[in-house]
């Protein structure tokens, strides 16, 4: 089920990127797309056992002290951590550019800038 929500978010982000003409809204759409993608990556690692038990966090603790337990795949979680950091970097850079654009044109709307 989670995958459908993730794909909906990705599509929503793409729709926003294609239809919005405001710089800030474009950056927001980019973020929605990235969040959708991150949710999708997380959902890949989820597992359900043969008798319906749900996978637990892949950490050995005093209560979960056997490697035979049903753990979710930890690799997508590591990947998503990296992807989040990269997304934040890109967003920060986009916002810095938005500030420059506003200083140059006095507007956030691409249509009002008088350039291609």
């Amino acid at each position, binding site marked *: 089920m989670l995958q459908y929500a993730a794909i909906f978010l*990705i599509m929503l982000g*793409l729709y926003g*990127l294609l239809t919005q003409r405001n*710089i800030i809204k*474009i950056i927001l759409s*980019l973020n929605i*797309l*990235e969040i959708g*993608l991150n949710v*999708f*990556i997380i959902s*890949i690692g989820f597992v359900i056992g043969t008798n319906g038990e749900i996978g637990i966090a892949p950490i050995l603790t005093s209560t979960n002290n056997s490697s035979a337990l049903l753990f979710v795949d930890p*690799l*997508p979680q590591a*990947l998503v951590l*990296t*992807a989040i950091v*990269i997304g934040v*970097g*890109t967003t920060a*850079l*986009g916002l810095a*550019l*938005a500030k*420059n*654009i506003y200083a*140059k*044109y006095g507007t956030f709307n*691409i249509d009002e*800038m008088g*350039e*291609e």
Partner: protein
Amino acid sequence: MSAIYLIAVPLLAAFISILVKKVSPYLLLLVSAASVVAMYFVDLETIVIGGFTAPYGISLVVDRFSQAGLFAVNVLFFLVVALNINNYKKMSSILLVALAGLNGLLLTGDLFNLFVFLEVSGIAAYLITTTNKKPLATFNYLVAGTVGSSLYLLGLILLYAMFGTLNMADMSQSIADSGVSAAVVSLPFLLMFIGFGVEAKLLPFNSWVKGILGHSNSLSGPMIASVYATAMGLVFGRLLSEVFVFDDKVTLIIAVVVVLSVVAGEAMAYASTKVREILLFSSIAQAALVVLLFVNGFVGWAIMLAIANGVTKFLLFSVINKATEVVGSDEISSLKGLFVNNKIIGVSFTAASLSIIGLPLFVGFIIKMKMLESLFTSTLVLPFGNYFYPAVILLSSIVEGVYFIKLLVSLWYDKENAPVVHYDVLLKYVGVVIALGLIVYGVFQGNVVDFADSLGAIILQGGVF
């Protein structure tokens, strides 16, 4: 010497350069020169990071492919930096990050690690293009690049869910072993193709190129059109030839995309009246040709074409962008007679553009001839038959020839109000060396042919872990 220093040292130097701003330009020069020298001491090997052997850990692959790419990219990077460092001292830290990202892209043997380096070098590229003072164009580049790499990541995750590995060699092995049909994996590979298509400037995804390279300066122009284009072309080629498996229908779509990019690129270049636009549309066509060769498995010549394109575009963009900064316009009419006062630069510029057209005596000729030869004699089933690609390439060569000769004629002949541009001695020297190299390797072609054949043979044997 382990190739990991090619990534680690520039990254460390980037941090140091933020702390000591004053020495950062010298640090950049030193590190980029050291990377070029270090290329001679890098062994051919697969480097295991952190003790996790492939396919579990990240591995860096140094084979002939990545070695050729690293050599070209590091030399070009050093030249661009050496020519521009005095005017763009503030960009030192960013350029160091760019060097680390590009070396990482070429070295990595892991698909997710590739995404990380794609973003690292991408963010550095967005920052380099801010020197154009066109924030809106840079913003468009950022949006296009981010959406592209997000699609790459989506495709990559689908592959991971299907085959449970991220290592490139292991991935292609498990796809082959699992016996799934190419149609099943066409969605992830198409997504990854689109993602890289943005960086490789393929047609529907390259709307950012005009805004960036059309207003580029002497740093961003050569950097994006030559250094980044070479690195991206080669990395895309590694994926296309070692990992991707394409269904017939997807091959058809890709053939249409690539051919349209070549035709549209050459047509737009023909129609342009601005020199930078002519060069950027020509780069689009060349990049599409590189992808065409990689998709159809002519790996050796694709690498040669990517490197030759990088070297020649470096010279053309450096010369034109310097002249544009002095004259203040890049219309052909205002640059008329540029080479009357700069004969040495003029001769090397002419040699580079004639090599791109593919006239005999230049390296471009051998590449184009061998390319056509292998397309004609290919036993593969190519889309639209064996004569379609050669026809497109020959037709586009004619258009290319017409607009480059037109450009050269107007840059050489106009004695009266010729603009006066003073070029660096270094650029003159580099230009002469490049021109001589193009002619020497164009005449004594044995080396080039052997090199390309040996590169092609290595890839056909399959990549190493």
